[in-house]
């Protein structure tokens, strides 16, 4: 593996690490394990923990994928590995 492709892969893994931590936090933490605590707070009429379990985490999932696509398309260009 060339130096270039090693650093391309490292940056990719860094993106994955950050985005998947958010994925885990909104669903498994906010939507399940911490939901009871969050339910003391309200957002637009919803108890917050309930909102993450039934609405919020899904919105965040969609955003995460589009952010990943944006970041990777930029990274592919920068490292000149994009498709023609």
């Amino acid at each position, binding site marked *: 593996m060339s130096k270039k492709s090693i650093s391309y892969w490292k940056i990719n893994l860094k993106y994955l690490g950050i985005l998947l931590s958010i*994925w885990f936090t909104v669903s498994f933490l906010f939507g399940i394990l911490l939901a009871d605590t969050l339910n003391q707070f309200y957002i637009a009429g919803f108890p917050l923990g*309930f909102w993450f379990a039934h609405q919020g985490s899904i919105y965040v999932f969609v955003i995460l994928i*589009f952010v990943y696509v944006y970041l990777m398309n930029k990274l592919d260009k920068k490292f000149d590995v994009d498709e023609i």
Partner: protein
Amino acid sequence: MSAQTWTYLLVGLTFFIYIIIAIVSRAGSTKEFYVAGGGINPIANGMATAADWMSAASFLSMTGLIAFMGFSGGQYLMGWTGGYVLLALLLAPYLRKFGKFTVPDFIGERYYSKNARLVALICALFVSFTYVVGQMKGVGVAFARFLNVPFDTGVLIGIGIVFFYAVLGGMKGITYTQVAQFCVLIFAFTVPAIFISLQMTGNPIPQVGFGSKGTDGVYLLEKLNQLSVDLGFDAYTKVNKDNLINMFFITGALMFGTAGLPHVIVRFFTVPRVKDARISAGWALLFIAILYTTAPAVAVFARTNLINTLSETPYKNAPSWFSNWEKTGLLTFDDKNGDGKIQYVSDTTNNELKVDQDIIVLANPEIADLPPWVIGLVVAGGLAAALSTAAGLLLVISTSISHDLLKNYLQPNISEKGELFAARVAIAVAVVAAGLAGLNPPGFVAQVVALAFGLAASSFFPAIILGIFDKRMNREGAVSGMITGILFTATYIIYFKPQLGGSGLPEDYWFGISPEGIGTLGMLFNFIIAILVSRFTAPPPKEVQELTERIRTPRGSTSLNRSVH
């Protein structure tokens, strides 16, 4: 026009559209048959993936489940959407770069082993077949209730339609039909939801509406919590603390299972480039999210309406839909205390009303008194959801047989034409077999779906992830990991599912994890065993290590794709 006429009209119209699309998009080569020629537009692929994914269960049963579960129902909402993040970030782009047709293709080549391919093949067949039988049954139920045809005839009509466009069009025909089916099902699901949201809260967006104040100025969720508590149920939004670990594991099993299901993964082989695979997962989830964020709103509206309309209502004043559904046996009333009123309470000895969760979506337009065409629309949507999922699954079954078994295992010298013919025969046989199983569904079909997700999570998911992210992963590690995952998960599920003949009792669940959630643990065992075994055995051959490096960068995907076959 009556609801009956509308239903005939709308179902007939949508079926006509599907057939026209099938004729226009016939498949001419194996590549068109397996992966639609690899040239599908990412947005179209997103819609097809969404239709493929949202089954009769998502459309008909999930809302009802949530309506009766409240907060804990979030496990289905998060579980059946979160897997797409994993697909987009960890699987789809790399598998697209790999550029073959099936999941067993990847497993077989990455682990340089025909036996690994065979294990993957058997899993893919089992998972897809159990799933498709449920869809056929869904078609039969929808026909039986709304078109007044017998259940068997309903299943036969379903077989006929799927047979026609799947055998003719392969993946190409299925993809374009699924795009149309997505439009039908999403329209059918959201229109009644918008109507009801307007009726109950004055807000046309259901996702916002169910958090707003009702017409009486009280927050809808607060009102539902109060109604539930008054009748002895848990408050709707209350977190069930004893169930949190189980909910955590079930959500995980559904997410990892989604990312390991062959009929979902194969959709990402149909787009032209790696970057299309990434974005198309995004579109797919966006389209799925429309239904999955509307469903919890419908659940709240339906539960509130149900309690308001029926609780303490004299039986003789019950609305007409009540007696219609009583006839089907999906709704029953038993006047235990003889006061002539409907008591709907949590306490089972005094409760007099039983409502099957499956009727919530179908009965909702009637409960909310919506115009008759909405009812026809919902039936057409339910059928679209069932048919599109069935077609996608049947294609995986046929590809597994003609490509993985015949071409790569039994008869490597088969011609392109011979393989295409075999694929058509295989899908025809699969349609008929699934239909017959659907006619006479073994009682455990619903239970087996848990097994399908559990197995996908504990076998495919780790094997594929390690194949991409761990260059050192070898045949010995992957195969022993898959076998550990499958054996552990299947044993646990069978032991704790009385419907499958198991003798285990819920008190003995490990850490309170029910069979639906055990796939998460099976997956962890798979990862651990695979990594341990691989480190004590020989590394994979040089060309496999190079393959692993190659799939990590996008460039060259199109040429790789062209060189195949």
